């Protein structure tokens, strides 16, 4: 055991030796950490929404330019809660045991690690992206994008 660990153990023993309750400083420190964890979770949801908003805007911009491939790509990236780099971060978080929506995952509402996009919404957005990519007329594209927009708006408002 390292010397610092020995000191910490002795200090903890001293703190608890006479007390009948958890030490106040420990409770306060843990409380602060809890605040940070919860704030971090909210921040995580915030950044994911920013990512999603970015892809939605990118899709809209690409549509104005007539870049149909970029529209479909950004719709799919929205569905996937970001590109593969974001997927890598999500993988790292899962490997570290972090599940933003652990309860929702258990119920099959969210894929592991997903923060905002539900399984159902992902399916709908991907289907719309595929339909957009395969569309050959403006009317087909408009229909596919409207389907995507409806799902995206709900998610971003939530």
């Amino acid at each position, binding site marked *: 055991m390292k010397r610092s660990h020995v000191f910490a153990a002795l200090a903890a023993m001293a703190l608890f030796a006479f007390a009948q309750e958890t030490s106040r400083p420990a409770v306060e420190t843990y409380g602060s950490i809890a605040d940070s964890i919860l704030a971090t979770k909210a921040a995580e949801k915030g950044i994911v929404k920013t990512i999603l908003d970015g892809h939605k805007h990118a899709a809209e911009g690409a549509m104005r330019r007539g870049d149909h491939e970029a529209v479909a790509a950004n719709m799919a990236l929205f569905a996937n809660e970001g590109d*593969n780099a974001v997927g890598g971060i999500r993988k790292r978080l899962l490997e570290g045991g972090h599940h933003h929506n652990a309860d929702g995952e258990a119920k099959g509402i969210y894929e592991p690690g997903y923060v905002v996009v539900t399984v159902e919404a992902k399916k709908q957005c*991907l289907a719309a992206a595929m339909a957009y990519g395969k569309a050959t007329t403006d009317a087909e594209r408009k229909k596919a994008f409207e389907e995507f927009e409806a799902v995206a708006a709900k998610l971003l408002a939530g």
Partner: protein
Amino acid sequence: MRRALLALAIGGGCGGQEAPPPPSPVPPLFHFTEETVPTVVWCGRKEKPHLLESGGSGLALFDYDGDSDLDLYVVNGWRLDGDKVVEKGRNALWRNRGDGTFEDVTDSAGVGDDGWGCGVAVGDVDGDGDPDLFVTNFGRDVLYVNRGDGTFARAPDPPGIDGWSAGAVFLDADGDGDEDLFVGAYIDCTLDEVLHAKPTLDWHGAKVMLGPFGLTGKRNAYFENAGGGRFVEATGKAGLTDVGAYFSFGVMALDLDGDLDLDLYVANDSNPNYLYRNEGKGRFKEVGLWSGAALDAGGAAQAGMGVGAGDVDGDGDPDLLVTNFEKDATTLYRNDGRCLFADVSEASGVKAPTYAPLSWGTALEDFDLDGDLDIFIANGHIYPQADALPDAGTSYAQANLLLANRGDGRFTDASRDAGPGLSVVRSSRGVAAGDLDNDGDIDLVVSNVDATPTILVNGTVRRGRWLLVDAPGARKVTVEAGGRRWTRHEVRGGSFCSASDPRFHFGLGKVDAIDRVTVTWPDGSEQAIRDAAPDRIVRVARNP
């Protein structure tokens, strides 16, 4: 003493010791007999406490000595006991004598690497017309350059990944006439971690190996051929950065969007697959997600292991097949053109028979010569503990699958009555397909974990005629006969860490003659062969 000989009863149906098959109301669609290659392929300990011990290895079928028949390269791993390495399995090269026998020429050819082997890629790195070998290892990868005299020189400073690299493929990505190299990587781990691993994951009440989640992914890499035997790492420059550090296994290069340059497809375990579309001049763009080839029909990432491709629906473009983990069926992606794909696993009949097993290498070939592509899939679990767990509902050794194409891109499981070769039950991994005996039908070689590889000799009753086009460097070949048209595409790499017969094989169904054969080269030029006859091997050299 002469090295071991492997006698192959070519097309002879040497199943004399097998019990006769039970009566069947319809004649069996396929018939394969079994032979073995006497090279035991090792992969760690019996208990498999580390994920590295699950992967097994691949095989290559290629003509190393230029005698017009396929030779076999078997990649080998290491055998462990406790925390000790007890045997470093050597890779082996088996030369096809052309008379139905193979001989071990590993030592004389100088290709017996004893690293912990995973995969193999075949390509002509020095442009001298003979095939060279690249071996992926857990550790330093190896490049063997073919001298053209039956021997290979080991490159002193090979490209590759130091770690657990898996599938690899040579392709001329930048169109400069030489072959570049893409290497897929799986997990970042050390030998010390492997040797001291303990099973820690709960699975049906038993402890099994951890992974891939809980382990760190290793990034894929791409190497540009700079000439003179020199390769330069150019992953980022080519747009192939593995940003997610996903767990990559099977890799394959082929033209998926019809622009005649080679795109890259990478099967990722438990993560979206990559589809890198070649934008020309060595630049790639990852388009997997929106193209529909990264996820399954439900939008979920699967546990990709092996990859295959071929025109299963006869519409002229290559469709994609990805094998996956157990209870996560093999996925067939129909190519709808313009690099757009649709998961048709369920409608095509691929999903149901492939749902239960854990699948690896694959081959899309016309095994009965009836004019459409069938599917072979090698299976085997990764947890040996499965055999002691009735609740798991599975076993470590599993039967392989043969799915018959009904002629319209829909498949029927035809494994059951497909001869003794399909009755082999092992924990299989890599698969290489090719016409080993040049008799016009496609045979298979399957790598098995901690066992000898299996050669499945095709003795299927022929439902048509055939053509084998040997056109090195061609991007695709189209055959017209009897009012039908078939296209076969150049597919490099694929399966699971393996390389198959590079020739273009056609089952033609019942035709009397061939009207036209058209060979398309990477620059778009076409070469027509008008005097080709069925049941022949046609060699095509590019017109000057």
